[in-house]
């Protein structure tokens, strides 16, 4: 009887100590790499399960809700119990506990499957719960060292993950890119930025003010009964494009003014097709837009359709330029386009004759390069849009190249040098300019 009491006191004390230590950890999850440097979890060139369990619970701290009743004296044993009885935690744990346990399982799955064999070599694939539950010498994982005895660390052992980021509120330089969330970091880095620039040219005696941008909000669409891998995004937006050149007396530069505002909706559907394990994605964009030109008083209603094929690592997808190195990544850009426009008001007499309803068909091609080196925050993109006129007369042939230097790691604010040449897709007007300005997107 006495011994039973002692045993119960012991287990309660152990439980309390572990629960307290774990709870303290939960107050501040540590941004740690996995796996860590070998020195932190290896003993005599073999992974020490107790050290590994301690490390995992520091990286993914669990709350006291996750601690099951029972006898266990170490974190390794606690982890084995929690990983073995997933359903128990589903019913009792907090949301972050379940997420952290899944993360522990996932990271360990990769190690035990041999994905990191060059640094941590598992002798045999075994379930993660069984690994933590097993005897000290069962299913060992070898910590691999070089011939000289130097530990061969796993890639990223010193990596610190960046903070997560996402937003439904969006600012872009092109309404076709409003469906790109900033959580898609590389795609986001390749989008056009909204621009606010002011140029005072003392030689030409002219001043140029430019504001260009689109503000949109991605409407959360409730989960539809779509097949797995398919989705629908809807982003209503407002856009502005104002470019004014004023000149002093005696200047040879001609004064000019562009001032348009537009309102529209970008609806974007994505579906995937599978052919023997090879995946091809199809993005369809439909964008009705109403554009008001405040200089010549015209009003234009447009419907733009776009098809974007996506095959990972081949088209509309980044791939490393130099695999294995954090150097730079490249993406080939390609889409098919159909632009249709009807003038509800052709504007002043000076432009009314040239404002004809139109149908244009064509494509956009180009490429984007993004630096992966944090010390070189540069990205470059160039696209050529060629649309032949089916009716209406004006062909579109618009080349745009942009080199951006970002001031912050998330690439929200930067300095951009842009060259554009040809008839713009949105207005049909000719443009030929170099531009440098402060740019932003969110």
């Amino acid at each position, binding site marked *: 009887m006495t011994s039973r009491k002692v045993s119960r006191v012991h287990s309660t004390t152990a439980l309390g100590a572990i629960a307290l230590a774990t709870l303290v950890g939960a107050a501040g999850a540590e941004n740690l*790499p*996995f*796996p860590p440097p070998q020195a932190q979890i290896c003993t005599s060139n073999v992974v020490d399960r107790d050290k590994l369990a301690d490390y995992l619970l520091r990286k993914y701290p669990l709350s006291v809700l996750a601690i099951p009743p029972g006898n266990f004296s170490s974190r390794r044993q606690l982890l084995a119990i929690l990983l073995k009885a997933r359903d128990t935690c589903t019913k009792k744990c907090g949301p972050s506990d379940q*997420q952290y*346990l*899944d*993360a522990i*399982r*996932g*990271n360990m*799955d*990769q*190690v035990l*499957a041999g*994905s*990191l064999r*060059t640094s941590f070599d598992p002798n045999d*694939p075994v*379930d993660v719960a069984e690994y933590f539950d097993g005897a000290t010498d069962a299913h060992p994982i070898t910590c691999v060292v070089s011939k000289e005895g130097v530990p061969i660390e*796993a*890639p*990223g*052992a010193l*990596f610190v*993950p*960046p903070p997560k*980021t*996402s937003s439904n509120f969006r600012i872009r330089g092109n309404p076709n890119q409003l469906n*790109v*969330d900033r*959580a*898609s*970091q*590389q*795609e*986001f880095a390749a989008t056009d930025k909204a621009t606010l620039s002011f140029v005072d040219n003392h030689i030409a005696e002219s001043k140029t003010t430019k504001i260009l941008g689109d503000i949109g909000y991605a409407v959360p669409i409730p*989960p539809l009964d779509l*097949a*797995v*891998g398919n*989705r629908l995004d809807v982003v209503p937006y407002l856009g502005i494009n104002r470019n004014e050149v004023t000149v002093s007396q005696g200047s040879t530069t001609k004064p000019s003014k562009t001032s348009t505002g537009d309102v529209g909706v970008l609806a974007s559907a*994505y579906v995937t097709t*599978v052919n023997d*394990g*090879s*995946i*091809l*994605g199809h993005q369809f964009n439909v964008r009705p837009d109403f554009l008001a030109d405040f200089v010549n008083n015209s009003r234009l209603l447009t419907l733009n359709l776009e098809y*974007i094929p*996506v095959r*990972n*690592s081949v088209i*509309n*997808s*980044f*791939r*490393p330029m130099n*695999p*294995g190195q954090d150097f730079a990544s490249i993406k080939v850009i390609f889409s098919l386009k159909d632009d249709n426009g009807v003038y509800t008001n052709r504007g002043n007499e000076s432009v009314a004759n040239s404002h004809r309803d139109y149908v244009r068909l064509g494509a956009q091609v180009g490429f984007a390069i993004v630096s*992966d080196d944090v010390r070189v925050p540069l990205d470059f993109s160039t696209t050529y849009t060629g649309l032949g006129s089916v009716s209406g007369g004006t062909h579109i042939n618009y080349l745009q190249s942009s080199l951006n230097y970002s001031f912050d790691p998330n690439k929200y604010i930067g300095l951009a040098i842009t060259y554009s040449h040809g008839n713009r897709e949105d207005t049909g007007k000719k443009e030929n300019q170099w531009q440098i300005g402060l740019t932003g997107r969110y």
Partner: protein
Amino acid sequence: MTQSIAVAGAIANQLNNDNWWPPNDLNKIMGKAYHYDINTITNFLVAVRWHLAYGNPRYYFQFDTAFANAALGQSVGDLTGSVDAKTSSDPPPNWINP
């Protein structure tokens, strides 16, 4: 092959196909470091789903847009755990073969 090992293998295989592995880094964030966007991560997850569904033994992985969005902010190791949690050895009631 256990479910955990099958999931880890399917993800490792797809990272190899997409040219991001080797080096096999579990810490890399799918969006930030491996350049996936919502379209390409969807392709990635559909491919993982296909490999699991036609492996031996078969496993059944289901995901939705919210899962794909969350995956962009996850490391490879964390994503492996998330996929494992959404995978079962029996087909769910609304299962459609990929």
